[in-house]
């Protein structure tokens, strides 16, 4: 057999993080000149796989991995991204790794600048050799030409439109002479339609020049247009792999989401007797400028007394909805709570309207880490509801009512008992608690405001199984017994499907569709990929 070895082979890749298996024996083969789409939900293991491929330090720091990576048939073990790059693997980043004040050529040649010879400064190695600007611009020109970008190499990056930056990144990777494998990580996410079109064209062309391309995306339609073959990961396993011709958008969507019958950590609820009907929250044309999770014109109607799920892939905007409703990021649109118009961008207004929020950013927004449990629960109540205060509570002196530590402590103690917070006492700093217990404190601090609507974002992220169940049970209990309306945002579709009455999938900042929890997998998969159901 004389056929050349594939450009890249991943063979039985297995990786654990602290006993948590995130990749269980993944194989992947990438031929020269092939565009291979790598698909999967968040947490399916795509990023870990890329970290292994690029030799990111985090992998070695957490105990390395099992399996083998072969580049053009030869086993490699990269110790750092630099080594991987030297080995011929390139990455087009989702967030641009470009220096705005540098010219296009300087960026393309960053830290790989062609240098002029020197005699005088030889002892200093390359440090004091002059840059060879002629060669720099010539090389940059060549790379730009290779991807048909008609742009002067002397322009500053900061003067370019956002869409062009992606192309400069590609030009930089292409400029690396030994480039064999190029990874595109969600390259079209920030591009306009026309630009995305151009990008796909460039990908095809690069593939024809013999570069093997690994294409990570959520847009299945793009996969069907440019990819040669497809690999789908789910829960750290390769669940499907094959040529594009053997699959379809529906098939991919279903395979990506597919319910894993073995993982039944979360309770599946019995259907409720009567369906909630009246609208409590009416959202129209909501746009939230939350970096990385922007919402762009979203409409929603939440019914009183339901548990409403917001799902979708990371970066599509589901997280932005609750943050926008709470006034934490610049928001436009119209929101009506119980029929009354809500003043946006004013956290206090949202709180006064009866909304309360458990943030996805537990340690950043959710808690004051070096404050005690009791203060973390009490401070919101003091501020919003004038609870736990002695002395004047209204009138101009109301800011000077003072804090009733005993009442706050009593309340904290009761919450500790009710939520089973494992702690040494209410005066322990929350920073010392485990993730699950911190989340319980977050819930306690949201509940102390006696909300009508509870917004919960990623309530089970990074907490252990026992705590997960407790948190979800608590949400259901609050909903069923106290009639609280719950809007739950989660990346784990399973979780949403186990507790929600209805689930909206947010894709590209809009609601792609609303599904009942028992809808078939394929529908969820399609909505997540921006396809119509």
């Amino acid at each position, binding site marked *: 057999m004389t056929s050349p070895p594939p450009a890249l082979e991943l063979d039985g890749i297995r990786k654990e993080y602290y006993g948590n298996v995130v990749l269980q024996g993944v194989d992947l083969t990438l031929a020269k000149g092939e565009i291979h789409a790598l698909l999967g939900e968040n947490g399916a293991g795509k990023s870990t796989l890329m970290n292994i491929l690029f030799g990111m330090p985090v992998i070695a720091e957490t105990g390395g991995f099992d399996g083998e990576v072969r580049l053009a048939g030869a086993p490699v073990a990269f110790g750092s991204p630099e080594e991987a790059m030297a080995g011929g693997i390139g990455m087009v980043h989702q967030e641009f790794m470009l220096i705005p004040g540098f010219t296009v050529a300087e960026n393309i040649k960053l830290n790989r600048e062609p240098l002029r010879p020197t005699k005088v400064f030889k002892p200093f190695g390359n440090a004091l050799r002059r840059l060879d600007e002629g060669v720099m611009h010539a090389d940059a020109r060549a790379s730009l030409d290779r991807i048909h970008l008609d742009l002067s190499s002397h322009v500053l990056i900061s003067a370019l439109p956002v869409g062009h930056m992606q192309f400069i990144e590609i030009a930089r990777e292409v400029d690396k002479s030994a480039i064999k494998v190029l990874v595109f990580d969600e390259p079209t996410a920030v591009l306009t339609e026309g630009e995305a079109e151009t990008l796909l064209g460039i990908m095809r062309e690069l593939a024809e020049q013999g570069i093997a391309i690994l294409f990570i995306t959520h847009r299945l339609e793009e996969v069907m247009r440019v990819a040669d073959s497809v690999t789908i990961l789910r829960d750290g396993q390769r669940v499907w792999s094959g040529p594009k011709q053997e699959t379809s958008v529906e098939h991919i969507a279903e395979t990506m989401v597919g319910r894993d019958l073995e993982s039944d950590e979360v309770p599946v609820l019995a259907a409720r007797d009567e369906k909630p009907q009246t609208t409590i929250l009416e959202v129209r044309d909501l746009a939230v400028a939350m970096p990385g999770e922007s919402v762009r014109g979203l409409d929603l109607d939440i019914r009183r007394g339901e548990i409403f799920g917001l799902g979708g892939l990371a970066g599509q905007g589901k997280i932005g909805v609750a943050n926008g409703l709470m006034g*934490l990021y610049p928001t436009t649109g119209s929101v009506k709570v119980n029929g009354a118009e809500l003043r946006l961008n004013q956290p206090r207004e949202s709180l006064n309207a009866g909304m309360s929020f458990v943030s996805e950013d537990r340690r950043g927004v959710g808690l004051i880490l070096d404050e005690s449990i009791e203060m973390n629960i009490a401070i919101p109540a003091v501020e919003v509801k004038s609870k736990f205060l002695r002395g004047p509570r209204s009138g101009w002196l109301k800011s000077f009512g*003072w804090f009733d530590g005993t009442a706050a402590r009593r309340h904290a103690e009761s919450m500790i008992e009710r939520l089973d917070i494992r702690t040494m006492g209410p005066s322990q700093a929350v920073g010392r608690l485990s993730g699950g217990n911190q989340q319980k404190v977050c819930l306690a601090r949201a509940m102390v405001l006696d909300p009508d609507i509870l917004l919960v974002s990623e309530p089970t992220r990074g907490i252990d199984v026992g705590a997960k169940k407790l948190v979800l049970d608590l949400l259901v209990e609050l909903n069923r017994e106290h009639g609280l309306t719950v809007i739950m945002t989660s990346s784990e579709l399973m979780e949403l499907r186990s507790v929600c009455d209805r689930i909206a999938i947010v894709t590209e900042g809009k609601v792609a569709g609303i599904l009942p929890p028992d809808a078939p997998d394929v529908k969820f998969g399609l909505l997540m990929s921006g396809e119509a159901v």
Partner: protein
Amino acid sequence: MSESKSPIVEKIREGVIGFGMARWIIVAFLFIIWIVAALWTDENLGKMFGDCLVRTGMNGVLVLALLLPVRAGNGLNFGLPLGIVCGLIGGIIGMEFAAEEPFGIFATSEFLSRGWSGFIFAHVVALPLAALCGLALGWLVERVRGQEMMVGIYVGFGAIAGMCVIWLVIPVKSQELVLPIGGHGVRQTVLIDDYYTRILDHWPRSAEEGASAPEALLHRVFDFGTMEPVEAGNAKPRTRAEARSWVPHRKYTGFFVPVGVLLYWLGMCGLLALFLRTRIGVAMTAAGSNPDFARSIGIHVPRMRIASMVASTMLGAVGILVYSQSYGFYQLYKAPLWMAFPTVAALLLGGASLKKASVFHVIIGTLLFQSLLTTSLPVVNTLVKDSAYASSLSNLPEIARLIIQNGVILYALSRVTGGRK
């Protein structure tokens, strides 16, 4: 490992650890100085302890002024000189009212210039001014997030330098204020002897000094030794033995508790501690500890930060008035230029950091730092008096102050990891 101990032992253990290594070292060092002073110098220990208390009360309000900005997340307020300048303006304007024709337009008022009423009038002038300046400083600092301390330093320097020019041209008429040459502009140092020198320090006065009956009674309660306001501590002990004994010798100890100034300061500390437990105080602390958290519960974080700067500037103004009444002079022009730095160092020495500070840190820090400064200078001077190197060695305490003061600030700066990477 965890053996059960009685709760009291445990409490004490926690207290000892919580007090912090740095502070124990300083306490130990202070004791060494005192022992050295008692054994090898003629220093009057009673007077020395009294001086420590005076200096503590004198600087205490200034240190207290730094508390709220730290709590609200503005870091160390190096812009303190702005408040100081406001306090000085209040003081000078008040004193001018003793002149025949204050500023050439008003009528003489002993009431507004001298005694308690004069001291209070200085506050009345200074505080609104300080509130305005604090508002401006807060507004500025809020717009330069991340560089608050840098901008603070230069606002402070700028305020002092700008005031230097203004002091030179102010048309004061009072003979005690005006520059001897030129006929306008204020002197470098203004003696406040006949106005309200040590008015706080020496409260309560004795009956002979014209105090009312309750005040005189209080005076007798706190009468540890020589209480004559001016001669306090000047009474020379006759023998070394007398000098060493700091047990109150009615006549010679010189030990003196500046009751009024300590009460004034500790009272303010208490008020601030209470304030921190009010709704707005809790909000301010939350805004400083975690601005995102605070915002998410509807606290207007910038407003809290600005408010903290207003309070700080106002306390700075009060601080310099308290400082000056104890010192006996208003020091104008460039004298307050460096005042922020030892003040900041005192707070940090008390155990505060760039992000955390409490009234306790203020009290401990001021007491320790000022005691250190007050006692080391005379002790070292006496010790090296006979050395051939006296002239150089006498600089040791000042050098040590520079190193400790800035070392403490540097340490605090390097302890918090920088925000952006």
